[in-house]
């Protein structure tokens, strides 16, 4: 695998990168996010877990405003999230996002998928964009598939391309919205390995997942959500061996004892 820089040089090695303050959101009568306060430090890997319908995916999607919020503030690198337009687009370019269903551009080749944002948003010339795209594809292990279309790739390969596409924008933070939930079991590891490598390289990551193994090994902090609230936040060791809340104990007893 080739060495490619993915994280921007951290001038301030510490500090708060993503800050959510009393964020609320409703879907009709359903209060999906209830007074969410969450701070993610630069270089931190935060794993969000919880039962389905707990609002964890919604939380992830509010951070680059794919979901709007009803109240509260979200700031990224000190800047509040703009409501619409060019400002918002600029901010989204700094926030990489990986989706459950990959969402690679179906009419473009793998290489073009990774080049598009660099050329249209970062205004790089074609040659530089291609160079970086190929390097990133090599890095996630799909270099030989560069000229293929997404539908010709396996799920695991598609998701790794999606990670490369997000990294191509040199994001400050990466959001993963259940990145392995749509994958066949034997393809989960190849994606998790890429994510663990990223975590080791110091990328700031917010990961919504059901992969407890990944949470244990790569996370700095586990955030447990239930019914639209953050119920518990702890280091992974502490959370998995000694959860404080009953809700978390109940959840863990259901998923860990098979």
């Amino acid at each position: 695998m080739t060495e490619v820089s993915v994280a921007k040089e951290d001038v301030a090695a510490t500090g708060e990168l993503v800050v959510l303050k009393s964020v609320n959101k409703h879907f009709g009568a359903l209060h999906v996010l209830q007074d969410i306060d969450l701070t993610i430090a630069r270089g931190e890997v935060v794993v969000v877990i919880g039962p389905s319908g707990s609002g964890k995916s919604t939380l992830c999607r509010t951070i680059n405003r794919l979901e709007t919020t009803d109240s509260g503030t979200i700031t990224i690198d000190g800047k509040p999230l703009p409501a619409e337009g060019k400002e918002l687009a600029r901010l989204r370019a700094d926030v990489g996002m990986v989706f459950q269903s990959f969402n690679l551009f179906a009419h473009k080749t793998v290489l073009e998928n990774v080049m598009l944002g660099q050329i249209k948003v970062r205004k790089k010339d074609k040659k530089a964009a291609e160079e970086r795209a190929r390097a990133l594809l090599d890095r996630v292990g799909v270099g030989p598939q560069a000229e293929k279309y997404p539908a010709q790739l396996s799920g695991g390969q598609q998701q790794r391309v999606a990670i490369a596409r997000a990294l191509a924008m040199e994001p400050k933070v990466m959001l993963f919205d259940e990145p392995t939930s749509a994958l066949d079991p034997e393809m989960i590891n190849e994606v998790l390995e890429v994510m663990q490598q990223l975590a080791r390289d110091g990328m700031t990551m917010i990961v919504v997942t059901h992969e407890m193994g990944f949470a244990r090994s790569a996370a700095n902090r586990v955030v447990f959500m239930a019914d639209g609230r953050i119920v518990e936040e702890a280091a992974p060791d502490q959370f998995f061996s000694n959860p404080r809340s009953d809700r978390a104990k109940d959840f863990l007893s259901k998923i860990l004892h098979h």
Partner: protein
Amino acid sequence: MFDFLSDYDILGAFWTTVQLALLSAVGSLIWGTLLAAMRVGPVPLMRGFGTAYVNLVRNIPLTVIILFTSLGLYQTLGISLGAKGVEDINFRLAVLGLIVYTSAFVCEALRSGINTVPVGQAEAARAIGLSFSQVLWLVVLPQAFRSTVGPLTNVLIALTKNTTVAAAIGVAEAAFLMKEMIENEAQLLLISAIFAFGFVVLTLPTGLILGWVGKKVAVKR
């Protein structure tokens, strides 16, 4: 039996039909795409305009629209679209009328195509920082066009046959000549068959070729 045919310029008339169809096709594809962009866009004023345009125009008979371009635009308001002679003026007015009418159908075909593009495609495009118009032109519309080749082919075939309405304002296309020939000659069936065949020659290959193109460019998911 076929002697009288040499007195008429049938090929010339069909050439006018082809020109009407091609120019109107290009024009309505452009205007129809812009209308579709307005209808899916975030600006309420444009959305309202697009919706009103489509619902108004597709419910007016084409004959009324074509007649209005001549009687209303040219003879009342003096708009001649930069042409000098009566023939040129009528031709351009007919093209305008066909574009106005056909674009409403192009817009709706495209809009249904846009609905076949999964929401995640646009979300992923937004997530890498593309603006609304970039999302539309770089990601959504290219995929929408590919899934719309079939419906757009129907619109194009309908357009080709609709060019006959231009005869109403004296454009010398195929149907205009057919009417003249039927009046002058006692060969109703033969003349009708010739013109019907002429239109089939125009539209059948269009359908076949675009059907092949549609398969070729289809987006695999």
